[in-house]
């Protein structure tokens, strides 16, 4: 459905815009219908920039992003695009105007996209959308943002996206500001939406969250893909030393860092990319070492 091909983003930096900063370079992956792809990386890895490019909030410097084969930058009517692709971001509190009731986000959708919908018909639609994100309409409608919890506000934003019959949801760190007890509900909700055929790009820095919900995983570092493919392969048999060191740093509940075998930390393991046969290098800079499991060269990258 959504396909990224050799996507790069360059920012002009410095006093006179003389310097160049490559935030994302040559990234390619797909998000299919009913599939959750998690995009994992540390700060500065370009994961949010990718999300913003898919949402057309940032322009693409080179490469193409296509939705059903159509280049998204050629879709003139932005409304038509946003009917299909929507984003939800990290901070639910700043997405609402504290002066107005929280359900104003639904009214704004109605005014912009469905001006001719009748009041009764619209109320039923809003209620269905709220129920699909497991919120009780009576509990949240008519309330002000400060009367609702972060998890409720975040789920209302997802409901707002669902109202549009979207096909792709870009979820950029949507649960990092939520408490542990409500976090998992929002994650489960993403899984429910996936079951309804929605494609989801789940941008996160938290490996355990990405692992819990996603079908495929893309690990980014300094704007480049270091490893990607089926989640069970990327997490179960990480081939790139960066993925391995990330996994080793994740705090776990039943294993301490000190318990990890020191062999895991050895960084001079042979490079999986160069060990793989020539014909497996099916994507630029990536070798397919297993079915749907790609890895980049582990050699020292130029900073």
């Amino acid at each position, binding site marked *: 459905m959504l396909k990224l091909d050799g996507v790069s983003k360059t920012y002009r930096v410095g006093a006179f815009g003389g310097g160049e900063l490559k935030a994302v370079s040559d990234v390619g992956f797909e998000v299919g219908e009913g599939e959750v792809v998690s995009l994992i990386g540390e700060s500065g890895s370009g994961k949010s920039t990718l999300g913003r490019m898919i949402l057309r909030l940032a322009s693409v410097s080179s490469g193409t992003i296509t939705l059903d084969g159509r280049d998204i930058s050629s879709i003139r009517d932005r409304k038509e695009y946003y009917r299909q692709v929507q984003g939800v971001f990290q901070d639910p509190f700043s997405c609402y105007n504290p002066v107005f009731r929280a359900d104003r986000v639904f009214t704004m959708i109605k005014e912009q996209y469905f001006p001719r919908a009748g009041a009764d018909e619209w109320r039923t639609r809003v209620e269905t959308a709220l129920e699909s994100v497991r919120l009780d309409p009576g509990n949240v409608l008519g309330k002000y943002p400060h009367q609702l919890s972060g998890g409720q506000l975040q789920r209302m934003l997802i409901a707002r996206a669902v109202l549009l019959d979207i096909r792709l949801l870009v979820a950029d760190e949507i649960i990092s500001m939520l408490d542990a007890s409500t*976090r998992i509900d929002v994650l489960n909700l993403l899984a429910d939406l996936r079951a309804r055929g929605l494609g989801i790009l789940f941008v996160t820095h938290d490996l355990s969250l990405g*692992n819990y919900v996603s079908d495929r995983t893309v690990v980014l570092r300094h704007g480049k893909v270091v490893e990607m493919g089926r989640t069970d392969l990327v997490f179960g048999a990480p081939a790139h030393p960066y993925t391995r060191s990330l996994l080793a*740093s994740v705090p776990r*509940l039943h294993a301490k*860092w000190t318990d990890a075998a020191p062999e895991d930390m050895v960084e001079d393991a042979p490079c999986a990319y160069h060990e793989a046969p020539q014909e497996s290098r099916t994507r630029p800079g990536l070798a397919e070492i297993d079915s749907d499991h790609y890895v980049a060269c582990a050699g020292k990258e130029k900073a």
Partner: protein
Amino acid sequence: MALNVTDLRVYYRTLRGEVKALDGVTFSVADGEIMGLAGESGSGKSTLAKSLIRLDGRMRHAGGTVELDGREMPLSDDRGMDRFRFREVSLIPQYSMSALNPTRKIGKMVGELLESRGERPDRAELERRLELVGLSGDVLDRYPIELSGGMKQRVVMVVSTLLNPSLLIADEVTSALDVSSQKAVATTLLGFRDRGLVTSMMVVTHDIALVYQIADTIMVMYAGRLAEKAPADVLVTAPRHPYTAQLISALPEVGVRHEDRRLTGIPGSPPSLLKPPEGCRFRDRCPLAFDRCAEQPPFAEVAPGHFVACWKAE
């Protein structure tokens, strides 16, 4: 005993009345103990950490005592607390990134700070301590803007522990960092204790998995009260308070997939602390609640070193 807190109450003054953010907490931290303090937003964990350092204008010390190494700390006396701050009890703030003066070089700022406490700055010692956290002495001649977030965090950690405080409070120090710097910062904290730079430590966090890595004991707070305190292993493997148990089972771990095991959150939300309900505050969300929960359960020791505030835990 390094720290003894008895029935501490700290309220926030608001226009609509007092918010009982810390409503009668009693616990102690032993010498050499690293205690993780976990809880969700609004549980009072940051209020507890702040109370031990400095009450800001909205906070009121409504009762209870805090003893550090046998001396009572005058919480509501800002001047009197100065004798303790930095020397006896020190804080690594949540936003370390903004804790440094942007107009001073790091070295000069640290020098001025030490002079204000009547101490002579010792550059060699400062460099040795920076080395412990993996920074070179050069950072002393740099401005904060020249350092990365992780580096600033480590500079602040060094500054906070310069006078070898008896109690160090680390308030959400890892929340804003990447996984790999999180690990570095957490192990540095552990190193401070192991090298004897600080005697005991309170690590405030919302991330139980992270604090489990370094803490000896973990204390869980809920809605301004203590829920459970136990050795880290016990708390994670055999929690006795229903809130702790549900919180821990709601954490996704690497290796747990949605298809294999669907985790569940805790329905409902914490009560308002403006007018907190009588009895156990977790009652409304608790699957085990029964009649007796209308009465506040004591924070009782059910096993050596294992305290639980729940009628069902006995």
